[in-house]
């Protein structure tokens, strides 16, 4: 219910907001067109009506699942976005996987041996990871791995295959080689985050009573770390990384434009630059729903990992 209210409010703000700047007609029309053609186009796109009337039309359409037609592609905006969504999702998932797979072990090490030079190197690296602008790193990755070394393709999405009926580039070798660089680029920030979260968690956990108790009981360090500490620190890590999934989708705008990755982030930035208002509005509607969903999933995951939350829920 609250989510619906938010979606509605957002629709008002964004709809009226995007309708203030620029003039989409001049973006679309061929320069050869004369005055009469321009007016015909304005009518065809419904831009001759007063803005509140346009909004009412939009809302009544939205209620029936129609978020309007893209000015540029002439197709339903919703269809366009859904069409571009899998590419973005697979990119974000790959980045998330990389972040956890790389970040957690490094963070674990840095947390267990805070004074070793390697740990200091890891932490310095994580600061760098935080600070380097994504777009800059993306370009460096292309320069290094695609242009100079020639190991990986520079841009685009490779061949796609099917896993469990979903079309994805993770299913083919060519697809995997295409996704590696953009996923790495997108993951960089999150790797740093995972390192820092894990390190902080480990440092805190190692000082706590249950670890001291386990040590006293004579459990091996390895067992303590991998069974007890890791299990405890995974909760905040999973929560934060889950929430960061949304930010991955947000940041994919940058990565997608550099790597010409045909996802919905690139669709959005193109729509903004070309004033394809229906697409901008529809993207926002979808993204709001999406975040509501992510929060829900994180809550569920959280309750699985932390039995106390589950017990509480059952109690009430």
């Amino acid at each position, binding site marked *: 219910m609250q989510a619906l209210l938010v979606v509605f409010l957002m629709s008002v703000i964004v709809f009226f*907001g995007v309708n203030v*700047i620029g003039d989409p007609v001049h973006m679309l029309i061929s320069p050869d067109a004369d005055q009469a053609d321009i007016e015909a186009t304005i009518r065809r796109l419904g831009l001759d009506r007063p803005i509140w009337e346009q909004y009412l039309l939009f809302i009544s359409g939205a209620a029936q699942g129609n978020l309007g037609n893209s000015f540029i592609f002439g197709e339903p905006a919703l269809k366009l976005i859904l069409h571009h969504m899998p590419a973005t999702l697979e990119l974000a998932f790959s980045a998330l996987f990389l972040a956890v797979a790389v970040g957690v072990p490094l963070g674990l090490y840095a947390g267990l041996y805070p004074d070793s030079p390697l740990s200091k190197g890891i932490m310095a690296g994580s*600061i760098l990871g935080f*600070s380097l*602008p994504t*777009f800059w790193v993306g370009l460096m990755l292309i*320069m290094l791995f695609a242009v100079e070394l020639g190991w990986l393709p520079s841009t685009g999405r490779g061949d796609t295959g099917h896993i469990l009926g979903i079309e994805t580039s993770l299913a083919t070798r060519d697809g995997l080689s295409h996704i590696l660089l953009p996923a790495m680029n997108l993951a960089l920030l999150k790797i740093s985050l995972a390192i820092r979260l894990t390190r902080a968690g480990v440092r805190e956990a190692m000082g706590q009573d249950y670890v001291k108790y386990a040590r006293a009981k004579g459990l091996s360090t390895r067992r303590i770390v991998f069974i007890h500490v890791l299990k405890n620190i995974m909760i905040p890590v999973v929560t934060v990384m889950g929430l960061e999934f949304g930010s991955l989708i947000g940041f994919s*705008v*940058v990565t997608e434009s550099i790597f010409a990755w045909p996802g919905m982030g690139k669709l959005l930035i193109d729509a903004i630059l070309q004033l394809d208002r229906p697409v901008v509005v529809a993207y*926002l509607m979808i993204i709001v729903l999406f975040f509501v969903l992510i929060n829900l999933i994180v809550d569920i995951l959280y309750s699985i990992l932390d039995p106390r939350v589950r017990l509480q829920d059952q109690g009430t």
Partner: protein
Amino acid sequence: MTDTIAPETPTQTARVETPFRRFAAEFFESRIATVALCLLGIIIVLALLAPWITPQNPYDLAQVDVLDGRLPPGSEAFAGYTMWLGSDGSGRDLYSAILYGLRISLSVGVASGIIALMIGMAIGLLAAYAGGRTETIIMRVVDLQLSFPAALVALMLVAILGKGIDKIILALVVAQWAYYARTVRGTALVERNKEYVEAAQCLGLSRLRIVFRHILPNCLAPLIVVGTVQTAHAISLEATLSFLGVGLPQTEPSLGVLIANGFEYMLSGRYWISVFPGLALLLTVVSINLVGDQLRDVLNPRLKK
């Protein structure tokens, strides 16, 4: 008014005085953080002094000559001075452009940081102090806002608002205020239940007074930490938006715009056009982050032995 709190003042000052010295000592324990702080100081001074220490005002078209375009570092400009960092495609001296760009980047970061801090602080305090329904509603909004990535919020806003320095500051404020609000509210909640607040309440001090004289000073430490990190974040976000072509216009070339302009030259062998502004951005953001990191370690009691 002043005499009513007279008995409290000595303890208050004593509490502030010694921790600060201890804090400074702890802060400078880390050599990296010390270097970062010095670097940051130098960067800020350079940015402030830009008009007096650069050979060219990159905004004044009378001083820029397209015939000076794309000169490598160390070349001599038409007007006679040496371009130590080379020039960009329009004939701007990069050293001058970077210092002026730093001014814009830093002011965008700091201005948005301060405004967001003020707003976030006010809302956070309100939530913590009002409690009840008001608190629930405010925190709902904060949570909601935080569930959206700042980058996306800022991107949507500039899409709606258009380009311009005021607009990007507004976008960054909207994208950031919730972080401050959450921080303040969290700390204020802890403070609210402490004895000295109860004592102050018993003394009959006004609510406003308690909030501003007692609760707020205690929230400052975490706010400073969040503030430094968020400022670095804001600078980097502005650069990203400008790079995507939705941030600042060409006429207000922040570091992000300079890098974006240099991006065209990446493969052309004229590395200096984007590398130097990139380095400047990197140094700025890294040093702020390093300082913030050390502040967090020093100010976070849980990590202290």
